[in-house]
């Protein structure tokens, strides 16, 4: 549980930073996720791309809450796309979807970031 088994690559798109997530997101991913967040810099929106997510446990969901707090502190929007039906349900179950806006595609998320 403590080993990082996911990678987080950051791309900049105008006012948004897109974080491409690959692998298993667990509590052990904290350092790599927070490094990615630091690399995202002063973007107005952080867009999490879950298209290549293999797995996420409850520790991973906890990390997203921590990330959300940090983003809110800097008045950044937190968005997500590429979630499978299963993880959409998990976002609803944990009520993370009330604070992280979920989009069907990267373009949709970027448009929302532009509009925001």
């Amino acid at each position, binding site marked *: 549980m403590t080993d990082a088994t996911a990678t987080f690559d950051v791309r900049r798109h105008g006012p948004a930073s897109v974080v491409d997530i690959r692998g298993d997101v667990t509590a052990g991913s904290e350092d790599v996720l927070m490094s990615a967040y630091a690399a995202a810099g002063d973007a107005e929106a952080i867009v999490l791309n879950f298209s290549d997510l293999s*797995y996420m446990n409850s520790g991973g969901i906890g990390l997203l*809450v921590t990330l959300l707090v940090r983003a809110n502190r800097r008045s950044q929007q937190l968005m997500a796309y590429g979630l499978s039906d299963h993880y959409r349900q998990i976002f609803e179950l944990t*009520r993370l979807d009330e604070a992280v806006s979920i989009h069907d595609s990267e373009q949709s998320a970027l448009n929302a970031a532009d509009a925001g």
Partner: protein
Amino acid sequence: MDGMDDRTVENTREKQVAARDATYWAKAVSRLNVSNVPEGAINLNVTGKRLAGPIQGFGKMWQKTYQVSLPRERVSPMDLIATWKQRFPDFWPEGNSFYAPLTGIEPGEVALLNMTLPGKMKLSTGVMVLYADEESFTLMTPQGHMFAGWITFSATEVDGQTVAQAQVLMRASDPIFELGLTLGGHRQEDRFWNQTLTAVADHFGEFAEVDTQVVCVDKRRQWSRWSNVWHSSAIRSTGYMMGAPVRALRGLTRRSRVVR
């Protein structure tokens, strides 16, 4: 042929991932339902409530981590979690009751909690098993619980030791609970989980010091959530207790009517 094999491997992996997802996580629920109320348990403040995570709470956000280390040769992480799941209520401090679901700690199951707060106040609430695998399980709170959040119990191997951990990510649910936490509630909670982990270590024949780490993740209170107080399990449990004599009287009256 190779392409076919790759596709087969990919399909198998997708199926395994889907099975893992379905097995470990609770299914989506809009409101909680307690199907079987164990004898002696008070089912209050759970049925019909929604789950509430740290985002829905009122107070400051805290991450509290309690750890205890045991020799690996005494117990493996997987065996520790299997035992913890199986005997979860036994490890709770005295005066507090965890009524585990009949099927045990399984994703989606709801457990009832009857707790004693300072001033001997009784509080009835519950939790839902949000996630459970071989190395960890997570309980999430309903609206009205003392705090909004979840607790993850896990075990890992670190340097030849099996480290058992309880980690709470929470905000006090409403202004009253926030005040309570500030006025000694945090200390009481720390004591609660220290006693729990000590009991886990004791079960495996070890006396071990519990390491406690407390981090304030968010200092801000979410004032827009003050109205969570409407669901307060403390207020509703107190009301229920105060209504006990009236309920008893009604029961007697009804019985005497039947006798006549």
